[in-house]
């Protein structure tokens, strides 16, 4: 995509978090290690923005404190924040987050991906589409769309 096509030409860029240090307790197999929001964040922070050569973390599209996880009930709720309220990529970004989590998390988790309230013009439509598992399933069988999603999800090493 060339620069003159960008919807948001100068997005704010934020610094990335350091890698999480692993603790001795985590290396002890006898300790039950439940999922926490940082682990969910680590799964999705490296997703590439469809427009910019930046990650969702660098654009603050995903943030650790907008992730809720309930191990007992098996639910993961992720809110994401489009960089501009009319972002036409919002559904694609949400779908990328959903697909990444579907592939990485155990099937017992029910994942909900929604736009952070008040941050997108078509918030309800985007949320409804992302919540419709039949549409998501059909999208994943669409070879063009899955290629685009895979490009967003694939981990690219950066300087």
């Amino acid at each position, binding site marked *: 995509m060339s620069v003159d096509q960008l919807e948001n030409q100068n997005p704010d860029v934020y610094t990335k978090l350091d890698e999480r240090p692993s603790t001795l307790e985590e290396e002890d197999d006898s300790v039950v290690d439940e999922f926490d929001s940082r682990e969910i964040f680590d799964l999705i922070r490296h997703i590439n923005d469809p427009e910019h050569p930046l990650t969702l973390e660098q654009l603050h599209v995903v943030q650790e404190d907008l992730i809720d996880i309930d191990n007992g009930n098996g639910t993961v709720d992720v809110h994401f924040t489009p960089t501009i309220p009319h972002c036409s990529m919002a559904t694609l970004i949400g779908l990328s987050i959903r697909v990444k989590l579907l592939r990485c998390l155990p*099937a017992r988790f*029910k994942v909900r991906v929604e736009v952070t309230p008040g941050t997108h013009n078509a918030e309800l439509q985007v949320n409804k589409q992302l919540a*419709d*598992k039949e*549409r998501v*399933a*059909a999208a994943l*069988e669409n070879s063009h769309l899955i290629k685009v999603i895979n490009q967003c999800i694939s981990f690219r090493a950066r300087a």
Partner: protein
Amino acid sequence: MGSLNLLQTLKKDNGRVWNLSWHPNGEVLASCGEEKSIRIWAKDLTGKWLNKIVLTDGHKRTVRQVVWSACGNYLASASFDATTCIWDKKGGDFECNATLEGHENEVKSLAWSKSGQLLATCSRDKSVWIWEVTDEEEYDCAAVLNAHSQDVKKVVFHPTKDLLASASYDNTIKLFRDDPSEGDWICCGTLTGHNSTVWSISFDKTGSRLASCGDDQTIKIWKEYPPGNQEGIPTEDGDSAWKCVCTLTGHHARTIYDISWCHMTGLIATACGDDAVRIFKEDDDGDPNSPGFSLICTVDRAHTQDVNCVTWNPVIPGLLASCSDDGEIKLWSFKELGQ
């Protein structure tokens, strides 16, 4: 109250199972899903259900729904590959003898009329198609209905009449019938009340009531008021009016994906995204204009993931089949306690 007892779990490790259909004789079950094929299950001599046949060469993508015709000779399947296949056994084995094309994208549901003369299909392309079966067993498109403004999730025919109901992502249910004066199918009713996608609908035995369920986590019961009804509900153009006479809330914790109204026992079963299967029973001596329904059985964790479909056996009272994202099909026997 009642209890659902698990009779058997059927599993083939082939991903999400979307839908099930009982053969009208009650002795055969068809299943379909992510694996792109259709499986046919029947009992062996010891009474265990087994996978007898796998139909693989019909569809290129997920098979979303299967349904037997009322005569039991035909099985129709709807797929994300935008086609509908009609399978029969005329040549001895099950074969796909007709492929219906026309929808622009995913076909999500399909239904046979009671007479077997009509087949309805619906799609993400927002349209509902009516196909007429000719004497030569060809399928002619009789109507393309563009009444819905979004994906159409489900179509169901009335149990006796050529009246079709459709449920949509646009939050409405619509009714369609043939209009002899126009020589075309028309939309003869729009049922509004759900606050989000309507995922499934099911007529009761007489066809004078319809149950619906969906993303708003409610069940609604709609009742037909024919022209000249005693209650004085106004009707238009000689068509019945349909009114919501009951809304059941607070029972389901996530989207309700399917609902099945048993034509023998009158019980209603639901399939929910919270992994549970629930059974509802109509209260005795209720007012027909505001009936009550009570939750009489919940099986939490009926499956380990979303339950996509529930369906009552048409011959054996209390025999229920369910299927799930977890890849399993389960057969249950419902017993009402105190009976």
